[in-house]
């Protein structure tokens, strides 16, 4: 079984379109949508939900106002300014539980907080594990870990060859949770200063976590100048570049129609994705 994470640093570079396309191109694949606060992979794969589970992110305090003497001890110790005379601000609260430990009246209890759900669904191209984090909820890294682990289990039990992971943007907590235990990542960038800047940061993270990156440039023809700069920079950093995908409105049209981009046309963009997958398959099979 081979895990491939698709990440980017900068958002909106085309991770999800590529992940859906690879699901369709890989012979035996399990999908994992690890971008849990903007979970879009399922929108292209018409999933049929087979398992639904609540996600417990952690615990949040509940105050028994009959016991509370308004002494203010909880407010003193809380570092998030999340509790005040018996009232909890659930958005600010980090769930550390220190308030409940210090309350002299034992008026505060910590209770499970359900902050989303995760699903195992069947799709035409293999099983998909995906999730929905309640908007505004924290601890997305923990939900990412649940999704990735469940996809790995499914791949093992179904003898799937591939786990295709659609990652979140950035390089913080949910990206690190996505990459844990992953050996290879496709880093999707775009030809601009912003693309290059964020690529540099996410490659540093790959290096720290010992993940082998492969870089691909999406919409390369929007700036051939920056495409050249990024290619040269990657070469200098000894990072493998695998593919260039042109700006192609037909890929876009298929996303708007809710279809897997690579399946609906033989446009230049679709052909470039097919070629990219071929190269990845080849590399990952050889390099492990």
């Amino acid at each position, binding site marked *: 079984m081979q895990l491939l994470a698709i990440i980017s640093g900068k958002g909106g570079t085309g991770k999800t379109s590529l992940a859906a396309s690879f699901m369709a191109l890989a012979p035996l694949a399990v999908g994992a949508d690890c971008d849990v606060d903007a979970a879009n992979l399922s929108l292209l794969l018409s999933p049929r939900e087979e398992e639904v589970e609540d996600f417990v992110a952690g615990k949040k305090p509940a105050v028994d106002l009959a016991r509370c003497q308004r002494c203010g001890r909880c407010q003193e110790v809380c570092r998030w300014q999340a509790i005040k005379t018996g009232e909890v601000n659930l*958005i600010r609260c980090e769930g550390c539980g*220190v308030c409940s430990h210090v309350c002299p009246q034992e008026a505060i209890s910590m209770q499970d907080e359900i902050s989303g759900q995760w699903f195992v669904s069947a799709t035409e191209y293999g099983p998909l594990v995906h999730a929905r984090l309640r*908007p505004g909820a924290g601890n997305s890294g923990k939900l990412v870990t649940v999704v990735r682990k469940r996809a790995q289990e499914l791949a093992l039990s179904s003898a799937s060859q591939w786990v295709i992971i659609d990652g979140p943007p950035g390089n913080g907590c949910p990206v690190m949770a996505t990459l844990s235990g992953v050996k290879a990542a496709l880093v999707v960038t775009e030809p601009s200063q912003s693309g290059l800047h964020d690529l540099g940061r996410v490659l540093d993270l790959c290096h720290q976590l010992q993940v082998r990156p492969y870089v691909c440039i999406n919409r390369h023809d929007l700036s051939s100048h*920056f495409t050249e700069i990024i290619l040269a920079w990657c070469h200098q950093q000894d990072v493998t570049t695998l593919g260039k995908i042109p700006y192609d409105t037909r890929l876009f049209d298929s996303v708007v129609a809710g279809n897997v981009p690579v399946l609906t046309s033989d446009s230049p963009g679709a052909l470039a994705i097919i070629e990219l997958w071929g190269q990845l398959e080849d590399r990952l099979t050889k390099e492990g």
Partner: protein
Amino acid sequence: MKLAVASGKGGTGKTMIAVSLALSLAQKRSVAFIDADVEAPNAHLFLKPQGLGSERVSMRVPEVDSQLCNGCGTCADLCAYNALAVIKGQVLLFTELCHGCGGCTLLCPHSAMVEVSRVIGVIERGSAGTMEFCHGRLNVGEVLSPLIINELKTHAPSRHAVVVIDAPPGTSCPMVEAVSGCDVCLLVTEPTPFGQHDLEAAVEVTRSLGIKTGVVVNRCDQGDDRVYQYCRREGLPILAQFPFSRRLAQALSGGIPAWEGLKGWRHAFTALGEQVLKMESEDTASCNY
């Protein structure tokens, strides 16, 4: 006015819009710009701030005094983040998991823990033209971006008429930290199923925080009309629409803001600025058309 520019989905054009909107507002007002996307900060590439001074951002993490610790395990039991473990009477610290709640130090029965500070990123401040500019950068390998965003906002200059905050993508803690306390939030979307899906989640956040919300549809010529239907159903005002432009994409790729690169777009940003100011001054009820 504190104005956040956010989006559920990444790459919809938050920075492009925040930068040019700030430049348009700065024509007549004093403006501060905060780039709160501390994982992928890009606004400086367009605003090219000068005279940047940098400050470290740190958090408090525990350290164990092995002379005083008897390995009782109280700290590990109460840590909600699994940042502490006690194995064979020895405390193991996983500082990268620590949220800095201070519980272990406070509650250790032998007072065997002290807090030390650990650097997790930097904040840089400078000026961009007439604007005050600041952004933060989370060190690679660190996870607590909300802490740096909080720091950026806590020390935000207050003497400006307008503070523009370029928020990180998503709808979880970093985005919540960036938009909370703002008077108005612009949500940038695109007319695709992804754009709409993530817009809906972002609207849930801004509404739960009681922030006046307006929508900007970027690449409005590429997609269908479902996002417009959604906004109409929800009573969300669409304050601007921008078409895809290859010329704009090329200007942006080289770090030239739309405001400077495409003269024709100036009046669109001026109009958007006026809409936002009008929205701020209206009471909440009339905003939800």
